[in-house]
């Protein structure tokens, strides 16, 4: 108890530091200054609630099995909701609603992939993984493959995938919280990192599950409220709601002058229709298919998702968990789609873009509007609540990723790879906690280092690695008799390296000379504008354009003539941003080729046992 009491004191003190006025940057935010105390109160209330839940749930932790998998005792309903809480990220909630509010139908195309990605999990992965696994994907792959090499290679790839996915979550979350309430970027990163460390380290899977369930309920509940409020003016006539998208002058002008840059001669009604048609955002079908494949197959091999299937007692519970998760995620997606269109109708794409170029604040702005506007108490109450839900969303996702990465590091690399399984229960527990601290520290440092960097492509890279390395290794181990250790290791290493390499030579990276050229072009067009404004004598606009020119010149001057990308390129070698369409087939080919070239008698001898256990879940007969 003393131990818990001292931690409660530390967390209380730290929470006051994190939420004290000193941590707020002096900048304009979506939440007005007079409403910040309200927002901070709701933040603190939610934070306090999650800390309480974490400690309460953490009391159930008695063993390493409890820490990693909640003792395998969760009900399918609870686990399904936790999977939804684990999976519905800030990108899905804030990013997708923003994409729909700005680009219409193409935003919907983007979100549907996140739902379909649960089909391979349900059909191929959930039940076999429950029957074969213990704590990690490494356990499944090492069942019929060489123990040490499989564990180390799979764990390394799983940690990479978790970090690739985690860093953009933390960075994106910090940027959003900064824009909403003005909390400094670094403080936001530390707050998220500290919270996830607290939940995972002291509560393990029990606490992580509780936080994820709470977050899923809050998120779905709040989205439902926003949809109801959005539909009230339309008398819940859904057809009329979508018809109003076509008639909205804001949307029509946005399509005509922003998305089509005034180049099209279509009329306003046609412009409204275009918003409901494909092609305003996703313009390259090959890229779209590549991203879709990586999403669908990669999710089935995401370590934090796989880990959730070890928390239920039977394969039937794993199947039901996946079904509950799909129901919760699908329902939330449908709500997010309505929220996106409602934001376009009620707030307007122009207003959303003026606050955030990525459109991430569409849902918060809509919440404020639906509550009565920026000057109303309820408007700001809604905004405060959505900011807190966004924070809970980020923390819940990151906590799941931390636990998955820590289990790979401690259970696979330390216990399996280094100690060859010869450790006591106490040593395993200590390793798990030290690994959690290490992963949290790496995530916080990487998050702070990534300030100002474009890290969004890391999410795509995480999915690409999972789909090209982990997924082929997992599926072939489970379903192909001739699969061998060499094939699995080749796919894991080859798929990971190829995915990373293809992203490094893709347009995702920053190419300084291209930035320099763009700045030069910008300077020329701004110079022309300055001349026009000087002739007009428009001093106010002139000052702003001159500032923009100075900024562009600063960028131009700061980049040397021989500057290159991180791997020494002046321009991308390929045009594909999402490598999945190439790397996934290569991953499968590597398993097949290396398994046939270097067969393993051990892998072959374990096949009957694997099939028996995969199908029945029985360990002994």
């Amino acid at each position, binding site marked *: 108890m003393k131990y818990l009491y001292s931690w409660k004191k530390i967390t209380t003190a730290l929470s006051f530091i994190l939420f004290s006025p000193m941590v707020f940057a002096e900048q304009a935010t979506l939440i007005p200054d007079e409403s910040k105390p309200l927002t901070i109160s709701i933040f603190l209330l939610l934070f306090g609630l999650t800390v309480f839940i974490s400690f309460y749930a953490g009391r159930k932790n008695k063993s390493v099995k409890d820490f990693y998998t909640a003792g395998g005792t969760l009900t399918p309903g609870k686990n399904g909701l936790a999977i939804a809480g684990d999976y519905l990220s800030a990108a899905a909630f804030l990013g997708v609603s923003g994409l729909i509010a700005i680009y219409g139908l193409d935003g919907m195309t983007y979100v549907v992939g996140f739902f379909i990605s649960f089909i391979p999990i349900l059909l191929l992965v959930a039940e076999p993984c429950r029957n074969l696994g213990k704590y990690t994907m490494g356990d499944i792959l090492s069942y019929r493959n060489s123990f040490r090499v499989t564990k180390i290679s799979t764990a390394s790839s799983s940690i990479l995938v978790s970090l690739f996915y985690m860093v953009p979550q933390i960075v994106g979350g910090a940027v959003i919280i900064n824009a909403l309430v003005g909390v400094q970027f670094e403080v936001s990163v530390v707050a998220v990192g500290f919270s996830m460390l607290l939940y995972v380290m002291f509560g393990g899977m029990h606490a992580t599950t509780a936080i994820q369930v709470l977050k899923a309920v809050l998120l779905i509940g709040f989205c439902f409220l926003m949809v109801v409020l959005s539909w009230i003016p339309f008398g819940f006539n859904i057809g009329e709601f979508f018809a109003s998208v076509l008639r909205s002058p804001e949307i029509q002008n946005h399509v005509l002058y922003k998305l089509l840059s005034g180049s099209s001669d279509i009329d306003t009604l046609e412009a409204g229709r275009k918003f409901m048609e494909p092609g305003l955002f*996703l313009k390259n079908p090959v890229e779209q298919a590549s991203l879709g494949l990586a999403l669908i197959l990669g999710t089935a091999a995401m370590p934090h998702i796989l880990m959730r299937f070890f928390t239920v007692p039977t394969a039937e519970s794993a199947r039901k968990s996946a079904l509950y998760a799909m129901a919760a995620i699908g329902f939330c997606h449908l709500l997010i789609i309505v929220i996106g269109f409602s934001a376009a109708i009620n707030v307007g794409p122009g207003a959303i873009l003026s606050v955030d170029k990525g459109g991430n604040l569409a849902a918060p702005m809509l919440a404020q509007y639906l509550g009565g506007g920026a000057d109303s108490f309820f408007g700001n109450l809604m905004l405060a609540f959505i900011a807190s839900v966004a924070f809970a969303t980020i923390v819940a996702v990151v906590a799941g990723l931390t636990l998955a990465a820590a289990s790979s590091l401690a259970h696979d690399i330390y216990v399996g790879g280094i100690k060859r399984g010869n450790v006591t229960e106490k040593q395993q527990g200590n390793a798990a906690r030290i690994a959690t601290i290490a992963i949290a520290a790496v995530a916080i440092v990487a998050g702070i280092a990534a300030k100002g960097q474009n890290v969004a492509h890391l999410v795509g890279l995480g999915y690409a690695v999972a789909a090209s390395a982990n997924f082929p290794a997992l599926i072939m181990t489970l379903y192909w008799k001739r699969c061998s250790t060499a094939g699995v290791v080749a796919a894991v290493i080859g798929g990971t390296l190829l995915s990373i390499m293809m992203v490094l030579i893709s347009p995702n990276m920053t190419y300084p000379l291209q930035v320099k050229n763009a700045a030069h072009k910008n300077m020329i067009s701004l110079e022309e504008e300055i001349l026009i404004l000087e002739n007009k004598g428009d001093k106010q606009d002139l000052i702003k354009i001159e500032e923009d020119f100075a900024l562009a010149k600063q960028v131009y001057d700061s980049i040397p003539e021989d500057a290159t990308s991180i791997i020494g390129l002046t321009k991308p070698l390929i045009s594909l941003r999402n490598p999945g369409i190439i790397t996934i087939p290569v991953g499968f080919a590597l398993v097949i080729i290396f398994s046939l070239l270097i067969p393993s008698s051990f892998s072959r001898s374990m096949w009957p046992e694997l099939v028996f256990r995969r199908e029945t879940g029985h360990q002994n007969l």
Partner: protein
Amino acid sequence: MNKNNSEKIINHPEFIKITREKKRVSFGLLGIVLVLFLAIPVVTGLMPELFKIHLFGGVNLGFSYILFQYVIGGLVAIVYSKKFSKFDVRSKMLMNELIEKESLEN
């Protein structure tokens, strides 16, 4: 587990039949889902006009087709769940039968 037992079980004709049927259901449903999902980039790339066909109000074929993916996902989940519940019963019956016959080695 005794390796001979697992060999015996996985080579039992009924067990082979069940696992084959399971694979057919899982991979078959996955194939249907993938084809229907990848049709979105194919249609937007090759036949964009198809998705622009107006249905009613503000709704066109593209919008309906994307929403239809959620229906497909739900249907696939229901079909899979029902089929696999039946497989569970058959597997349990087989296991009980094998244990009763005491054909397994200790």
